[in-house]
C-alpha cells in the first residue's frame, strides 16, 4: 500500500501505451470503419437506385405488354373481320359462279334443244315430204308445193 516508484513506472507505461494506441491502433481502425461506412452508404444508395430503376423498368414493361396486348387484340379483330369478309366474298363469288354456270348450261341446253328441234323439224319435214312423195307417188312437184311444206314444218 506504500506509494513508491511503481507510480512513476505505471505513468510511463501508460504514456507509452497511449502513444502506441494513438499512433498505430486508432487511426487504421478508424479509417477502416469510416471507409466501410461510406462504402455501406454508397451500397445502400446504389441499391435504392437499382430499386427505382427496376420499378421504372417494370412499369415500362407493363406498358409495353399492355400496348402489345391491345395491338394483338386489334390484329385479331382485323383478322376476324378480314376472314369474314373473305368468306362472304367467297360465298358471293360462288353464288355468282354457280348462277353463271347455270345460265351457261341453260343456254347451252336451250341451244341444244333448239338445234335438235330444228333438226327434228328438218327431218320431220323431210319425212313428211318423203311420206307425201310416197303417198302421192311423184304426183306432187316439191317445187310447186314448197310453201305448203314449209307451212307444215313450221306448225310442227
Amino acid at each position, binding site marked *: 500500500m506504500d506509494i513508491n516508484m511503481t507510480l512513476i513506472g*505505471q505513468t510511463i507505461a501508460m504514456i507509452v501505451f497511449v502513444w502506441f494506441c494513438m499512433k498505430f491502433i486508432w487511426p487504421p481502425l*478508424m479509417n477502416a470503419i469510416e471507409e*466501410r461506412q461510406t462504402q455501406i452508404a454508397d451500397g445502400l444508395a446504389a441499391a435504392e437506385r437499382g430499386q427505382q430503376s427496376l420499378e421504372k423498368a417494370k412499369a415500362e414493361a407493363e406498358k409495353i405488354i399492355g400496348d402489345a396486348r391491345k395491338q394483338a387484340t386489334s390484329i385479331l379483330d382485323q383478322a376476324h373481320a378480314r376472314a369474314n369478309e373473305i368468306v362472304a366474298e367467297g360465298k358471293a363469288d360462288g353464288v355468282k359462279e354457280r348462277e353463271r354456270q347455270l345460265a351457261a348450261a341453260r343456254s347451252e341446253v336451250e341451244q341444244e334443244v333448239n338445234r335438235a328441234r330444228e333438226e327434228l323439224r328438218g327431218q320431220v319435214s323431210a319425212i313428211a315430204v318423203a311420206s307425201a312423195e310416197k303417198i302421192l307417188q311423184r304426183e306432187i312437184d316439191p317445187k310447186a308445193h314448197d310453201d305448203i311444206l314449209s307451212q307444215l314444218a313450221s306448225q310442227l
Partner: protein
Amino acid sequence: MATEGGHGPATSGEYISHHLQNLQVCRVEGEWVWNQCAGNPYAINVDSMFFSILLGVIFAWIFGSAARKASAGKPGKMQAFVELVVDFIDSSVKDTFHGTSKLIAPLALTIFVWVFFMNLMDLIPVDWLPELGLLLGVPYLKVVPTTDVNITFGMSIAVFCLIIFYTVKNKGVTGFISELTLHPIAPPTKGLGLIAAPLIIAFNFILESVALLAKPLSLSLRLFGNMFAGELIFILIAILGIWQLPLHFAWAVFHILIVTLQAFIFMMLTIVYLSLASEEH
C-alpha cells in the same frame, strides 16, 4: 485452500497478508534486495509492473494486429470485435467531448481496455498464480495490478497532467489561474471591496485547488478501492474451504459487472474531466 499447504502461511491472517503483499525490489545500501522495502519510496512493485505491462502489451498486440489487418471490406471476427469496442469508445467520446482532439479517443480506448484487462485478473482464482510463483521461487505475487494503489495513481496522475495541459492549452495560463482564483466567488474589482479581494482570492484558490486535486484522487481511489475490496473478498472466500466454490462463483459473476463498470467509469470520468478542461464556461 493454501492453509493446509506445508510451505504456505499457517493462519488465515498470514494467508491474507501474504496475498496482499507485493513482490518488491529496492536498493538498500547499494544493493538490490527483494521484499525488504517497507516504506521505501524508491521501491518498485515488480508484480504490479509486470502484469500491468504484460496486459498492456496484450492490449497493444490484440488491437495492433487487428489495426494492421484492418480493411474496409468484410471484417473478420476479430476485427469485428475490435471495431465494436472502438466504435463504442468513439461514440462515448463523441457524446461527451465536443472539441477535436487526436488524443482523447485513443486515450479512452487504452484506459478502458487496459484497466478492464487488469481488473479481469481478479477473476483468476486467487491462489493459482501465487502458488505457481511459489513453485518458481517467487515468494510474493499480487496478480491484479489495479489493487495496487500505485498503479491507479500512476494512471490518474497521467490524466491529471493532461487535465492541466488541456486547460492551459485551451484557456491559456491566465485562464488556468483565473479558473483557480476567480471562481466560485468573483472578487470585487472596485471600491472598498478591493480590500477583501485577496481574501476572496485565497478562499477561491483553496476551494478550487481541492476540487482540482480531488479529480485524480477520486479517480484512482475509486478504482483501487473497488478492486481491492473485490480481491479481498475473493481471498476471504478462499479461506472457507469447500464452501468457497458456490460463493466464489457467485462473487465472480457479480465481479464481472464491477470489472467492466470500473473500467468504464475510469474511462468516462477521464473524458469528462478532459472535456471540462477544454470547454469554456
